[in-house]
C-alpha cells in the first residue's frame, strides 16, 4: 500500500520531486567534491616525495633542508663531504640513497645534479617514479634532462644545447659558457617540483666548476681529458635521500645521523616534515572544510524546504487517506518513506555526478594546482558522510511528517477543491 501510494504520489509530482532530488544531489556532489579536493590538496602536497625515509644535509633549519632538496626553494648554507655520504651509504640498514648537489640554475630553473639512483628509486604520489616522455636518462658529463615545465617554457627539444649559469638567480651574470650541455631527455609532467628541475650528473656539476675554484672563471683552458666521466672525482654534495630496509630503524638512524661525529649533519623525515609544513599553511584546508559544511547545511535546509512544501500541497491527500481509515502512523510512514526515497535518490545521483565531475576536472586540477585526485571508490569516511546525509535528510523529512500527523483531520477535509 505504502509502496504503491508513494510511487503514485511521486510520479504525480515528477517535476517537483525531481527538483528535490536534484537539489539534494547538488549538495551531495558539492560536499563530496570539496572534501575530495581538500584531501587531494593535502595528499598532493604531502606526497610530493614518497618512499624516502630520511633526507640528510648540513646542520641548519630542517624546513630549509626540505625546501631546497624537494621543492628547489632556497639553498644550503654548507655542503657535506662525499666521504660522509659514502659512509652512510655503506651502512647495512640502508637500502638505497639518492645524492643531490645543487647550486646552479638554468634561466631561473634549478639545476639538480644527481645519479642514476634518482631515476631508479625516486618516488612521489605513492609509487610513481620519474619517467621520460622523450629521450633517456643522463649518462655522460654534459648530458642534461629537463622537467616538463622547463621544456614547455623554452620549447626545448631533445638535442638542444643549453648553457647553465652560475649561481641560482635568474639574472645570472656569470655563466658556464665553455661547458655547454646537451638535452638528452625530457621528463613526463608530474605536477610536482620535479617539473621545474634541470637534471645533470654529479660529474657534470663538478666539471662545470673546473677552473672556478676561486668563485670566478680563471680563464685557463682545460684539458678535455679532464671532462671524461671516469676522470672526475666528486668531492661534495648538498644533501641526499635515504631509504632504509626497515621502517623501524628510521628514528634510530636519524639520531645517529644527528650525532654524526666527523661532520655537522642532520636528517629529517620528509613525510613528517611535509605534514608539519602543511599544517602551518593548512588554514586553507580549514576554510575548505567550513565551505563544505555550509554546502551541507544548505543542502539539508533545501531538503527540508522542498519536503515541507510538498507536504503542504498534500495536506488534503493525507486527510483523505485518514478519512478512509489510514492511521496517523500510516501517514507518518508514508511521508518518511517518501523523504528517505528522495534523499536516497539524491545521494545516488550526487555520487554519480561527483565522479563525473571528478573525471573532467581532474587533469586540470592536477596540472594547475598540484591537487592530486585519483578516481577511487568511496572511502569509509565518505560512506559515513553519505549515511549521515541520508539520516539527516530523512530526519528533515520527519518535521513535515510530524506536522502532518498533528494536523487535525477536519483541517484537511474542509479545504475546498
Amino acid at each position, binding site marked *: *500500500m505504502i509502496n*504503491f501510494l508513494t510511487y*503514485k*504520489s511521486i*510520479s*504525480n509530482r515528477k517535476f517537483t520531486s525531481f527538483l528535490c532530488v536534484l537539489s539534494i544531489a547538488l549538495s551531495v556532489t558539492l560536499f563530496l567534491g570539496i572534501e575530495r579536493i581538500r584531501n587531494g590538496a593535502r595528499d598532493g602536497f604531502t606526497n610530493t616525495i614518497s618512499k624516502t625515509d630520511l633526507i640528510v644535509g648540513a646542520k641548519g633549519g630542517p624546513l630549509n633542508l626540505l625546501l631546497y632538496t624537494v621543492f628547489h626553494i632556497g639553498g644550503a648554507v654548507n655542503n657535506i663531504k662525499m666521504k660522509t655520504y659514502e659512509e652512510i651509504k655503506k651502512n647495512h640498514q640502508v637500502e638505497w640513497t639518492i645524492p643531490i648537489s645543487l647550486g646552479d640554475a638554468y634561466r631561473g630553473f634549478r639545476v639538480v645534479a644527481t645519479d642514476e639512483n634518482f631515476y631508479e628509486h625516486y618516488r612521489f604520489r605513492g609509487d610513481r617514479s620519474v619517467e621520460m616522455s622523450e629521450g633517456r636518462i643522463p649518462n655522460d658529463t654534459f648530458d642534461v634532462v629537463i622537467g616538463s615545465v622547463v621544456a614547455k617554457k623554452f620549447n626545448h627539444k631533445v638535442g638542444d644545447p643549453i648553457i647553465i649559469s652560475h649561481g641560482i638567480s635568474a639574472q645570472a651574470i656569470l655563466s658556464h659558457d665553455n661547458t655547454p650541455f646537451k638535452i638528452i631527455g625530457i621528463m613526463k609532467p608530474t605536477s610536482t617540483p620535479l617539473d621545474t628541475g634541470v637534471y645533470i650528473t654529479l660529474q657534470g656539476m663538478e666539471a662545470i666548476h673546473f677552473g672556478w675554484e676561486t668563485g670566478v672563471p680563471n680563464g685557463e683552458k682545460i684539458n678535455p681529458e679532464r671532462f671524461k666521466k671516469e676522470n672526475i672525482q666528486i668531492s661534495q654534495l648538498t644533501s641526499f635521500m635515504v631509504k632504509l630496509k626497515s621502517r623501524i630503524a628510521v628514528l634510530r638512524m636519524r639520531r645517529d645521523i644527528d650525532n654524526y661525529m666527523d661532520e655537522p649533519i642532520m636528517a629529517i623525515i620528509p613525510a613528517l616534515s611535509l605534514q608539519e609544513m602543511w599544517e602551518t599553511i593548512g588554514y586553507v584546508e580549514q576554510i575548505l572544510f567550513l565551505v563544505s559544511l555550509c554546502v551541507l547545511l544548505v543542502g539539508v535546509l533545501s531538503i527540508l524546504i522542498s519536503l515541507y512544501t510538498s507536504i503542504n500541497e498534500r495536506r*488534503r*491527500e493525507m*486527510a*483523505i*487517506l*485518514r*478519512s*478512509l*481509515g*489510514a*492511521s*496517523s*502512523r*500510516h501517514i507518518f510512514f508514508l511521508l518518511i518513506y517518501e523523504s528517505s526515497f528522495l534523499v536516497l535518490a539524491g545521494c545516488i545521483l550526487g555520487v554519480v555526478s561527483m565522479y563525473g565531475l571528478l573525471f573532467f576536472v581532474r587533469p586540470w586540477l592536477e596540472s594547475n594546482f598540484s591537487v592530486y585526485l585519483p578516481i577511487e571508490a568511496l572511502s569509509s569516511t565518505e560512506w559515513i558522510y553519505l549515511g549521515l546525509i541520508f539520516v539527516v535528510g530523512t530526519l528533515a523529512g520527519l518535521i513535515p511528517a510530524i506536522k502532518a500527523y498533528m494536523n487535525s*483531520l*477536519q483541517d484537511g*477535509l474542509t479545504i*475546498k*477543491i
Partner: protein
Amino acid sequence: MTKAISLKKCLFSYDKNTKLVINIDQLDIETGEKVFLYGPSGHGKSTLLNLTAGVLKANSGSVEVLGQELTKISQSKRDHLRGEKIGYIFQIFNLIPYLTVKENIVLPCMINKKRSDDDFHKQAEELIDSLGLREYIDKKVTDLSIGQQQRVAAARALIGNPQMIIADEPTSALDEKNTREFMELLMNVWEKKKFTLIFVSHDERLKSYFSRSISLPEINHHD
C-alpha cells in the same frame, strides 16, 4: 435490534467560544435502518455526520457508534473504526486526484485489511459497471465530471461491505435520471447487505426511499 448510533446530550461547537452547532438531546438509529436526514443549509447536517463518523469529536455528551463510545477513544482508534466499518461519501468528494477511478475505489480495501476480505477487485468492477463508470475505469478522477466523481466516491464508500454508510448529499450533482439510477443501486445494495444507512439531502423527494426521515431542526436545538 441493537443501536447503530446513539447520541445523548451531545454538544459540539467548532470553536470553544463560538455558538453551538450541534445540541442534540437524544438520537438513536437502529442497525440496518435507512435514515433520511434533512434540514436547511448551514444547520449542521455535515457536522452531525462528521461526529458520528468520528472525524470530529463532541465537546460533551456521549456518541456511541457501532458499539464504541467515540468520545472516549483516541483519534487513531476513531480513524480505524471508520476505515473498517464505515463507508463515508463526503459532500466534497475527497478523491485522490492522481489516482485512477479504479484505484480510488479500491483504496479503502488497501488501507483496511477487514475490508479486503473478498476479491475486492471483482467487487470494484461490479460497482463500476452498475454506476456506469466502465469507460472511465483507468482515467484520472480529475478528468471526470462532478457527477461522475460523485459516483466514484459512492463506489469507494460501498466497497468492502461496510456496516454503515454515511452519505452527505451524494446526489447533489446528479441529474434526475442519474439520481434515480443511483438511488436504485443504493437500495439494491442495501437489500443485499442491510447496512445502516444515513443519507443527507436537500431534496425531500428522495424521502420515499427511506424507512425513517429526520428533520434536523426538530432534534437539534443549537440556538
